[in-house]
């Protein structure tokens, strides 16, 4: 298993959609206490779809690459579609299967995204 492939390292070193988003409709923050991963997601919704999304935070390469890749993929997707995404999907993006200790790192960004939009949709 080669976790540190070019693509993951590229997303880690040059994260896409990194930074603050002005005028965000929803946001959420997730922390992984045991390893110190931290992520904040900000989203602009257009109706039921994600129009724009950005993230800030710090974490390991897996965590940051997963956030970078996910933010690229979820743009334009509907809330219902995003709520269906799971570990298998994230592993697909990363192009690898993960050991149990790394699943948390990889899933933190998706959990943050889902929490943000879920809060929004349940509030409606």
């Amino acid at each position, binding site marked *: 298993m080669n976790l*540190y492939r070019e693509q993951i*390292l590229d997303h880690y070193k040059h994260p896409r959609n990194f930074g603050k988003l002005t005028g965000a409709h929803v946001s959420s923050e997730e922390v992984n*206490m045991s*390893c*110190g991963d*931290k992520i904040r997601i900000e989203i602009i919704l257009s109706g039921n779809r994600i129009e724009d999304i950005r993230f800030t935070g710090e*974490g*390991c*390469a897996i965590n940051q690459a997963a956030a970078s890749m996910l933010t690229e993929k979820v743009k334009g997707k509907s809330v219902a579609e995003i709520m269906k995404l799971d570990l298998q999907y994230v592993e697909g993006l990363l192009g690898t299967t993960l050991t149990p200790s*790394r699943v948390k790192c990889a899933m933190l960004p998706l959990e943050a995204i889902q929490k943000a939009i879920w809060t929004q949709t349940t509030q409606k």
Partner: protein
Amino acid sequence: MFDSKKIRSDFPQLDRKIHGKRIVYLDSTATSLKPQSVIDRENEYYTKYTANIYRGIYTTSEEATAEYERTRQLAARFIGASLAEEIVFTRNTTESINLVMYGLSRTNLANQEFVATIMEHHSNFVPWQQITTGFGLPFRIWNINASGQLNLNELEKLITRKTKLLAVTAVSNVLGTINPIKEIVRAVKHLNSRCLVLVDAAQAVPHMPVSVREWGADFVAFSSHKMLGPTGVGVLWGRRELLEEMKPFNYGGEMIAEVHVDHTVFKPSPHKFEAGTPHIAGVIGFGAALEYLERLGMEQVRAHERELISYAIKTLDRVGGLTYLGPKGSRMRGAVFACTLQGVHSHDIAQILNEDNVFIRAGNHCAQPLHEYLGIASTARASCYIYTTKEDIDALVEGLLKVKKIFA
């Protein structure tokens, strides 16, 4: 003579190959490997004289009781305690500390204060934070200086006539700092003779000579599993009069002298704190661990680790961008190195080292307040013990250079 090659042959796990390569175990601060003699001793109880202790009027039960109590004697001697009765067996350091915390919570704590250092492991931090929160009492923190050490002059501001207890670690599991416990206790008692001092010695007793009498503290807690012994066994040493007056933590069998419908008379300490069937096999196995370390000599153990520390400090220097926490010399630190590497998260360091069977720990090592105080999210920690060699440190450095290359 400290023969690490001979020592390594006592540890069966060091023979294991993963993907055809040897194991470089650098996480002894989390738990130590076990020598064959400990495994055999524990196994012997299960194969030759399994029986409950104290109650059987038959040979095997008496054998088990004798072995269990012999470990208590060994533990007392190992830490320079005056009496075996001052040794309470618990599950681990955490339970030892909680035993004291619950005991104190049954006394009148009105207007009392508690102090803990910022470098405490969660196990010696959260109990005191919780008891003070629960009773609405002040909880003061003793911070560290830039080199990761405690300044004794600060005690004047922290210890008042109301301070009930100071919680302090003997050796930090992150910084490696060795705290001058004897001097700390003396300073505390000078400011408030009734203030209790509880020492978390989980990282001290396995690595250096410790004498609780010399320290002069009131409670000392440590674990078997960090010093070659089985998991699930901890020790609380307490001054006899304090243990006698403290209320039990658990109630039930084995800890009682008489039980009537309307009242119970407890056994004296330590038995009143050991309710229920204890980890008999574990305690007996712990006896073999104490004997193993006694044979080596704790002065020699410390000398071996100091040599490793000096070597590690020198070789880690080769890795540009690497910083390790804590004191810089070998005199006032233990053989544990919590490192940060510029631009790389500790998880990634640990994962890449794992590819070459170099096992280290990543995260905040149950010391989140310390990491927050230092403004560091996490560190990659390598730690040594009696079986660690310079080749292990070389493998660590090689691994770190590989990490740098991948993330360059």
